[in-house]
């Protein structure tokens, strides 16, 4: 099938402003959703659901959150994992302390907690830019985790500081099996991704990008920097918070505050850089890449040279190749995998007449 938009004329602005203006993209999206919702639960085994798809979706959502902040609003943050922690612990406490609260409401409230904390730690962005801001967000990373460890109230005074996710039951449906967890995660992620897509293609997103590209000019055309930046921090943290709650409830079950460490924040940042800064889809491509690449290397290594070299060396070689591949991808396409996909599409649109 040809990827062409010839013959697809937009008769109205409404048509021109659809979420997927090109018909092939629409069809592709519907097919993908059909596959993810209707086919995957039946063909995927537990391994794929629980160790691959669920984490990729959750990390994709967290990466999307960071992408809103960094990719669209241009504010570099190294504290995403901490905002995930706020979401997870927030949701846990709402579930714990409010009897009979529906899970989705707790999830929303948990996300809102993360958003509030996000605004607080976003305040420096009004005066600090670039790497200074990035390092300042580390304050959030370390401080939040410290608070969650230090004050037992957050983990309901569990001796080991961990929280154990309650069972999720929505309208009588039990989300215990991997398939159900996958479907719930997928639903939340898809809905939130579409909402994000809508935000970035409307005035909200334009304001973010304006602040990102040239803040002085943005201010001069009447965009309020403070409000826009804090809004980006809030929404970004909300997304991270929801991702964190899903991480606890749909993925791991029991989580400790230290699980949301700096390493995780870096991984999320990696996802958007590799996937594509300022791209919704890139967030998910990046998440898939960063979650799966080490696994792929691990499997590939142990099946090939694993038998011939000491295990220590094999693990180090994995790390070396992981690092080298990241460098390689950034050199080949500094704008991320999403850009590669976009370029391919552009070529396809013009093919076979490239000019």
């Amino acid at each position, binding site marked *: 099938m040809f990827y062409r938009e010839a013959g697809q004329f937009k008769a109205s602005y409404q048509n021109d402003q659809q979420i997927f203006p090109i018909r092939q993209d629409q069809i592709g999206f519907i097919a993908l959703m059909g596959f993810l919702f209707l086919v995957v639960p039946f063909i995927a085994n*537990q*391994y794929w659901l*629980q*160790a*691959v798809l669920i*984490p990729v979706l959750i*990390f994709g959502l967290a990466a999307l959150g960071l992408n809103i902040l960094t990719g669209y609003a241009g504010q570099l943050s190294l504290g995403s994992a901490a905002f995930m922690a706020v979401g997870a612990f927030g949701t846990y406490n709402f579930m*714990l302390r409010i009897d009979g609260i529906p899970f989705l409401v707790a999830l929303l409230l948990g996300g809102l907690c993360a958003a509030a904390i996000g605004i607080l730690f976003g305040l420096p962005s009004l005066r600090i830019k670039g790497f200074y801001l990035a390092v300042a967000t580390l304050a959030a990373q370390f401080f939040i985790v*410290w608070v969650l*460890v*230090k004050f037992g109230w957050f983990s*309901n005074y569990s*001796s*080991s*500081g*961990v929280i*154990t996710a*309650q*069972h999720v039951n929505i309208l009588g449906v039990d989300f215990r099996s991997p398939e159900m967890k996958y479907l719930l995660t997928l639903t939340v992620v898809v809905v939130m991704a579409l909402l994000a897509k809508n935000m970035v293609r409307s005035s909200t997103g334009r304001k973010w990008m304006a602040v990102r590209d040239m803040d002085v000019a943005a201010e001069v055309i009447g965009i309020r920097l403070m409000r826009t930046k804090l809004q980006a921090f809030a929404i970004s943290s909300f997304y991270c918070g929801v991702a964190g709650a899903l991480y606890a409830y749909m*993925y*791991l*079950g*029991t*989580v*400790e*505050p*230290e*699980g949301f460490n700096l*390493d995780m924040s870096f991984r999320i940042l990696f996802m958007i850089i590799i996937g594509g800064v300022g791209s919704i889809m890139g967030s998910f491509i990046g998440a898939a890449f960063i*979650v799966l690449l*080490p*696994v*792929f290397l*691990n*499997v*590939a290594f*142990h*099946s090939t040279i*694993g038998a011939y070299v*000491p*295990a*220590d*060396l094999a*693990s*180090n070689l*994995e*790390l070396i190749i992981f690092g080298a591949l990241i460098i390689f991808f950034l050199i080949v396409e500094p704008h991320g995998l999403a850009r590669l996909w976009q370029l391919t599409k552009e070529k396809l649109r013009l093919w076979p007449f490239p000019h």
Partner: protein
Amino acid sequence: MKFRKTLMAVAAVATVFTASYAVAQQEQYVGLPSYRVGPFGASGAALYGGWIDYMNMINERDGGVNGVKLTWEECETEYNNARGVECYERMKNRGPTGNSVFQPLSTGITYSVLDRVAEDKIPMVTIGYGRTDAADGTVFPWVFPMISTYWNQASAIMNYIGQKEGGMENLKGKKIGLLYHDSAYGAESHAVMDRLAEMHGFSVQKIAVASPGNEQQAQWLQIRRERPDYVILWGWGVMNPTAIRTASRTGYPVDKIVGVWWSGAEEDVVPAGDAAKGYTAAGFNPAGTNFPVIQDIMTHVYAKNRGNMSDQSRVGSVLYNRGVVHGIIYVEAIRTAQENFGTGRPMTGEEMRWGFENLNIDEARLAALGADGFMPNLQITCEDHEGSGLLKFQQWDGEKWTVVSDWISGDRELVRSMIKDSAAAYAAEKGITPRDCSAQ
């Protein structure tokens, strides 16, 4: 052409991903979620090395367990929770019976798979780490925090200090400094220390060290000001040598510092140099190669050049020997299960669970294994998944560890009751009905 090659490579890897191992039906498979890189790679390499060497030795010397060869597969977790879960899921259906035990050597990963092991019917053994209240087998049938929990350890350390002081009654009025890693792991010590302080009339001064703990000037100056009679070092990783070094430079006597078992390996004292001479730490296995079991590994594995440790000098180190303890417990559980369910075939996860739950490694058995004094005796029951709770204390003389105590237990009654309470709270929160052990 290049593309096709890539495609074939991808296909090959994909096959490995999905297809289960083509291993003979007579093999007992275990998946090892090891870590050999990252901040704790040194510990992971030693511990999993010891375990693998022991299994290798059993295969070489005995031809497996009652004729069932042991096979294993490593999966690198990098001490990362998500990677650990992936390893768990990847390995759980491998081998003829699926994974027979999961042992991640990471409390974070332990928590991450806690719900899953019960559903997948794979026993999880966490020796010296993990979730403390899982020692209550009625609430956590699938989890085995064996030999000793953290709470028991805290109590055993206080018993050891009591011994040194000539009796528990002499602890009255003493001041104990608790220098702990500021994390969930470090916080495990608080409740039990508070209870013990109340019981024995000593005071506890808790001092937190922020992770990773490579700077402790402030903490040790506080200790210097307060001058506690003893300092318990509840550390991990680089925090340990830093603590010992800083103690020496602030003039705190090293022989008054007692470390936990994660502060008591060569890795923790060697970097501290002379400052560590005289430092004591708890452990459930001594260091050294003078045990028959280690000698057997030397003859049957390293002599044939099949050893797992790339640096053979680390054989016999505390963490390596701890890995051997893991191997012994694993193999003995297989033996126990086989005796009940039938020898000559690999055990399933459920059968393995039974094997762990009915494990009884007594003195005689230890002697037979060539592990007399190498690890404490261990009896697991349906209710008690911890076992003996016996620890030995070792002192570093600048070159090697020497055992300076007999096996010392914690206050079992106190610890058991705390475990019971905590597990009951968990059961209530999760809606679990504890099983009835008298019916087992």
